[in-house]
């Protein structure tokens, strides 16, 4: 019987090629989107799910809460570990410190490696929490010797090429020119997906021989750093709320006087292992890999669901519309003894066949989609994942769900036909079915319309973000950073001297980060105006006397700094207002208290955006580098270039790089950034979202219009006689087309009325993420409404014009 069903399903498919094609295209697009997005969700959700007792592993993290802001850090103070390591709620407490050595040498081979990444200082407890497979070395005495290191096999292959793991044990590596360290173990790199990307595990005591010595000798409860990571594996019977209480109490007990005064507090939290891959607040260890973004995945999943729904709706609409054509077959089958259940199974079988064809096509299409969406798709995601049993089962379940969503209602309608009526050709098209079709069509166009409006508005906001004046010069400015760890100002000055010989460079400044960047440096400032004390957090930008010229900072009163080693501040307008000065002039000459020192305000500059337009402008000051003897804040050179052609720019850039090579020996660490690109990068997520929306819009319009085309073909065919009569009576082509289009355009118009407020609400919500936003213009709605009607009209007219043009004699004769 099943063979019979499939046979007739296949013949039906071939008989109604256009409708089948419309159904297959719609379902294929929806299924492809679902497959790809499903793979992405699976890929991200299975990070680090292989660790033994992973549900008992937590990272201890810190939130620094001030009255103005909360600042989240994935690390904790170095002091915390000693306080909690004996708590019986923990099975294991393990910490590590992330620190890139400046150099690692294998002197035996004469090879050296600068700034190797993913190096941690840790101890045996780390290996108790995370189970590595040892390829060589003593597993029982892990890092027990103070000068020992464990390497992953990948790192070992870099340092000791063509050497088997067991031969590497006992060999020496030299870190930072002087630290001799023995390799005591080689471990396998994790084969599964992981955020634990570390390659080199050095025994913790060696930290005391690095620049960090002081930090470890004088543990400070108020010094917290992302590099200092603490992991715990809680006991199987642990009381997690008791642990949290203990952490809260510890934080409260170690709050210092200043924090109490300013209302600052720190809070320790337990971050589950499974949360690390998703929680951007605390981050992961390899930023280049990109973290999973829950809201992006949710949005993607929604897009997939909507596309799939649109495909299902096409199926329902076309099949119920065509139902009368199959009525006779149903009547005969019923007469010959088919039960309703058998008929429903037959139609569900037909639907499944169609869904299956779409699914096979989707697998092919998915490969292509993964390329299109490469911005969203992580590098490690590939079709191998399709072999996972979970994915296979999910895909089958999805196909069954789609089959039910699409096929069940039409099957119910078809199987319900009254045998006597259909055999007599007395089949009335139910009013209810027509209403349902209209409702579903409106639903489709509502989704398409929402996507159009959202695309236009998101595009408008992105355009606003990228074109709004940041308040300083952003074009034709590049920053060249000194090698990592290189803090010598004299070398920067030498480099600047060399660059002055290049005529294409207009201005040169040595300084910290550009006025707008993702990194911040801030301290608390207080000012007593005689009546009351005002406290505020103050962010800094550091630079020499040319900094304000390179970035064309607008000085409103007073002057810029005169010397980069003199203690003086140029505050911004927001800071001026916060401190209570009525005018910029009033602020000039006043003394503020900054980290226990009196510092004069010498100037007031206009506000500019310090980050993306997502954040508000905060109190900020431009200052010199007066702590230089201890720690220079200058990281590189900022160059304002003459405007020139791209060919000229290339030459200038190579001159700048050559000058760098003549000053610095670490030529692999040459880093140059274009300020306008860095600013664009603030909005990477928005640009991704915009790309996603463009696709979702295009595809939803395509599926909806195909569905509409199907309905138009069907309806027009039914009205052939009416069109013929009207033509005979003298109706013009335009009049007939208007009559035929009106019915459908009304649906599109209703969809617009429903979509507009929903889209407005959604976009308005999204815009709340931005401190500065574009207006939601009326014209956007107008344009998107007209665009949708335009698309619909084209689709409808394809068929209606053909019908209206037909010779009425033919249609009337056939009656």
């Amino acid at each position: 019987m099943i063979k019979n069903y499939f046979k007739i399903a296949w013949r039906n498919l071939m008989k109604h090629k256009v409708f089948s094609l419309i159904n297959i295209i719609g379902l294929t697009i929806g299924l492809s989107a679902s497959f790809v997005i499903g793979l992405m969700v699976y890929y991200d959700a299975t990070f680090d799910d292989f660790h033994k007792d992973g549900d008992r592993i937590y990272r201890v993290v810190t939130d620094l809460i001030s009255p103005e802001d909360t600042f989240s850090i994935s690390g904790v103070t170095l002091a915390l570990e000693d306080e909690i390591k004996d708590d019986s709620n923990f099975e294991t407490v393990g910490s590590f410190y992330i620190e890139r050595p400046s150099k690692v040498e294998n002197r035996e081979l004469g090879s050296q490696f600068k700034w190797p990444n993913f190096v941690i200082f840790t101890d045996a407890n780390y290996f108790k929490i995370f189970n590595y497979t040892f390829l060589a070395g003593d597993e029982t005495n892990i890092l027990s010797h103070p000068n020992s290191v464990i390497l992953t096999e990948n790192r070992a292959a870099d340092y000791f090429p063509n050497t088997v793991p067991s031969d590497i044990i006992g060999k020496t590596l030299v870190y930072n020119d002087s630290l001799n360290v023995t390799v005591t173990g080689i471990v396998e790199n994790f084969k599964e997906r992981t955020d634990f990307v570390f390659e080199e595990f050095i025994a913790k005591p060696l930290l005391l021989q690095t620049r960090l010595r002081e930090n470890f000798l004088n543990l400070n409860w108020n010094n917290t750093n992302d590099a200092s990571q603490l992991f715990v594996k809680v006991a199987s019977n642990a009381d997690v709320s008791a642990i949290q209480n203990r952490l809260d109490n510890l934080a409260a007990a170690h709050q210092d006087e200043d924090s109490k005064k300013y209302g600052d507090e720190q809070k320790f939290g337990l971050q589950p292992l499974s949360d690390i891959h998703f929680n951007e607040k605390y981050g992961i260890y390899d930023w280049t890999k990109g973290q999973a973004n829950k809201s992006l995945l949710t949005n993607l999943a929604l897009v997939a669901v909507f596309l799939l729904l649109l495909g299902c709706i096409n199926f329902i609409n076309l099949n119920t519309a065509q139902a009368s054509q199959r009525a006779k077959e149903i009547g005969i089958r019923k007469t010959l003894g088919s039960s309703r259940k058998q008929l429903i199974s037959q139609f569900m079988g037909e639907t499944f066949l169609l869904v299956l064809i779409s699914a096979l096509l989707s697998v092919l299409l998915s490969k292509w989609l993964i390329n299109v969406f490469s911005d969203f798709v992580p590098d490690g995601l590939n079709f191998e994942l399709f072999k996972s049993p979970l994915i296979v089962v999910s895909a089958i379940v999805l196909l069954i769900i789609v089959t039910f969503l699409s096929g069940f209602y039409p099957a119910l309608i078809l199987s319900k036909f009254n045998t006597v009526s259909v055999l007599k050709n007395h089949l009335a098209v139910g009013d209810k079915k027509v209403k349902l079709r209209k409702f579903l069509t409106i639903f489709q166009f509502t989704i398409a319309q929402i996507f159009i409006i959202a695309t236009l508005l998101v595009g408008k906001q992105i355009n606003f973000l990228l074109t709004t004046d940041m308040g300083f010069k952003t074009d034709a400015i590049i920053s060249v950073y000194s090698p990592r760890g290189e803090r010598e100002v004299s070398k920067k000055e030498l480099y600047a001297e060399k660059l002055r010989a290049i005529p294409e460079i207009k201005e040169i400044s040595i300084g910290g980060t550009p006025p707008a960047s993702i990194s911040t440096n801030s301290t608390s400032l207080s000012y007593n105006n005689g009546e009351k004390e005002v406290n505020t957090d103050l962010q800094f930008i550091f630079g020499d006397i040319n900094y304000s010229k390179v970035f064309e900072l607008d000085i409103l009163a007073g002057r810029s700094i005169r010397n980069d080693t003199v203690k003086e501040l140029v505050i911004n307008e927001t800071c001026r207002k916060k401190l209570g000065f009525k005018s910029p002039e009033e602020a000039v000459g006043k003394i503020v208290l900054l980290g226990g020192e009196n510092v004069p305000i010498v100037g007031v500059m206009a506000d500019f955006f310090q980050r993306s337009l997502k954040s508000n402008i905060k109190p900020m000051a431009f200052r010199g580098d007066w702590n230089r003897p201890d720690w220079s804040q200058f990281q590189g050179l900022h160059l304002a270039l003459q405007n020139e052609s791209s060919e000229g720019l290339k030459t200038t850039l190579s001159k700048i790089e050559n000058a760098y090579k003549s000053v610095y020996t670490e030529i692999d660490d040459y880093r140059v950034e274009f300020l306008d690109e860095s600013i664009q990068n603030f909005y990477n997520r928005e640009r991704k979202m915009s790309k996603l929306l463009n696709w979702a819009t295009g595809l939803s319009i395509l599926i909806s219009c195909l569905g509409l085309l199907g309905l138009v073909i069907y309806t027009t065919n039914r009205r052939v006689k009416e069109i013929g009569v009207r033509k005979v009576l003298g109706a013009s082509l335009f009049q007939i087309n208007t009559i035929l289009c009106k019915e459908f355009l009304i649906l599109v118009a209703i969809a617009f009325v429903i979509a507009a407020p929903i889209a407005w609400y959604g976009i308005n919500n999204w815009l709340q993420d931005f401190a500065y936003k574009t207006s939601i213009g009326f014209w956007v709605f107008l344009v998107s409404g007209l665009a949708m009607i335009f698309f619909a009209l084209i689709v409808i007219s394809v068929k209606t014009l053909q019908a209206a043009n037909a010779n009425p004699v033919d249609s009337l004769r056939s009656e």
Partner: protein
Amino acid sequence: MIQITDLEKFYKTEEVQTIALNKLSFNVKEGEFVAIMGPSGCGKSTLLNILGLLDDPDGGSFMFNGTEVAGYNERKRSELRKHNIGFVFQSFNLIDELTVFENVELPLIYTGVKPAERKKQVEAVLEKMQIMHRRNHFPQQLSGGQQQRVAVARAVVNNPKLILADEPTGNLDSTNGNEVMDLLIDLNEAGTTIIMVTHSEHDAKYSHRIIRMLDGQKVTENILA
């Protein structure tokens, strides 16, 4: 085999109620060939639909092989129908998407006959109806007479006790019509009960008994043999 007593059927629209069958009563014995005649709208087809368990009466009794079936639900009716009743329609009602073989095979599929047995039975009946050479053709590739032979083959493939024929020659020329009537006679002689609705006096003469109807009631009954 069939006993109907005071059978009633009404059709209602919003404003009008039409009486299709008005307290109709008659019996049909096993092995009989009964022709039902009457003008359009007299209730012949309604009667045939009720006898074929495709439709429900609104009143009266319908005994089939000694069992009251008037109140049967769709599932029971379907069950009874597929094992006992074969249909032949004026417009053949073959499924366009299925071949001759597949069309004839359908009733056997619904009664759960195994594929090998189905093949045997279908081929046997196609031979008998002399349409075997067309087994792989689709209905639209056949003449009207051939299509009706396929329809008869389909009606008898299950060896039903009762065949209901609704103007079986209505769409055929006289030669093809006579051939179909000969087929029905052969079946009847082999023991199958036949009830045939027809407008044709010529066809009605093949039967044992003619029941004439008007306005949902039986007017006369002529016994021919």
